[in-house]
């Protein structure tokens, strides 16, 4: 399991209407690239420390190392490419999901077998099929992105600022006018809220009742 990069501190928000933030970002720095990608996220209600996703047949896990000043530091590591050994699924993937690993009939699993034979039949597991259009920027030496995200076909937008240096992320937040009262929402939490595995923010429910 190779280290992909140094752990970065991250601030991320999700919402439908990010036009104002996008306009501010566009004024501050040029858009560098746009990429499209599809990912599959594996989610459990109890897991809040591991971000587990599969992209282009490769699984990686980001582990939440620490939270400081409203930022989260995630440490990515590569689990491997499908077909994935049963032993890796048992000793790496399921411990990260925080649930008991089922009995496996194969020594190794293709992605299709993994999804059909292990994931889809587990009542404690949910899968989010996510399509992203990611627009990349550099702001205050931070990797910054605005992305349109389709979660099982439903749209939500996200903005993310990340850097190995938390001070730079905090300064970039300030440049965008994002206050300390804005919640930092990571991908698993946003997906779990949409899919009903995590409660919606209290404010969201209260505003309409």
């Amino acid at each position: 399991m190779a280290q992909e990069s140094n752990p970065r501190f991250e601030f991320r928000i999700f919402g439908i209407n990010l036009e104002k933030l996008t306009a501010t970002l566009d004024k501050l720095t040029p858009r560098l690239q746009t990429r499209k990608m599809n990912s599959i996220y594996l989610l459990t209600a109890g897991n809040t420390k591991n971000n587990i996703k599969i992209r282009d047949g490769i699984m990686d896990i980001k582990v939440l190392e620490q939270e400081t000043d409203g930022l989260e530091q995630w440490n990515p590591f590569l689990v491997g490419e499908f077909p994935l050994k049963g032993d890796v699924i048992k000793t790496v993937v399921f411990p990260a999901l925080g649930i008991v690993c089922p009995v496996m009939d194969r020594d190794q699993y293709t992605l299709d077998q993994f999804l059909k034979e292990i994931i889809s039949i587990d009542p404690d597991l949910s899968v989010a099929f996510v399509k992203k259009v990611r627009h990349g920027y550099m702001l205050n030496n931070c990797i910054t992105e605005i992305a349109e995200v389709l979660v099982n076909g439903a749209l939500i937008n996200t903005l993310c600022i990340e850097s190995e240096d938390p001070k730079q992320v905090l300064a970039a937040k300030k440049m965008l006018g994002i206050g300390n009262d804005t919640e930092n929402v990571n991908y698993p939490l946003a997906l779990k809220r949409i899919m009903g595995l995590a409660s919606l923010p209290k404010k969201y429910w209260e505003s309409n009742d």
Partner: protein
Amino acid sequence: MSKEQLEIGAISKPRFEFRTFGKEFNEAAFLMSRLSVPVPEKVWERFSEEIYIVSKTNDINNTKIRDGKMDIKTLIQSVDGLEQWNPLMKGEFPMKAEILTQEVFPAFKVEMPELTKEIYTLEEFLEIIHNHPDLQAVRVEKERYGYMVNDTICEYANVWINGALVVSLNSESTEVEDIKKTITDLKLEDAENINYLQAIKRVIGMSNKKLAN
């Protein structure tokens, strides 16, 4: 037999419905707006916030709560791919345990939870749903634009399911042929008929099927 003249907002006999959900239906929405006859101002734009209760084991009863009132519709038949829904139950919170036991939970087709109180507020009811492994309460906000095409009641809607946006179009009428003509006129022949219950289940991952686009 003469056709029933549909009036938007009025009570009619059970209507057949075509509805679809996806990320965009720009062409169909444009056609709907151009083909529509003028409609009453009250349906030009409507906003609502609802809670749908979805069940892993039920696909025929559609339960929603709006402004503290519960409304359950049941699927009575499908004709030529169109669905006909009938009201099954209407109630209001606080709700008696007797009604929950005899009418509401049977509609979910799940194991009956133990009810220890005589009457339940909406918050208490949602707590029961939260604790039930086969049920989920889903927040749905709608921004609906009403039209009338080929004597069918139509709408284009932006729908937020737990905060994530999908677009929905529908055509409903007591007359199946009018809906079928509308589907053709809106160039929606290839779009799957997806009702609210199914769309919500797909977005929240309770069903692994995809939306129409």
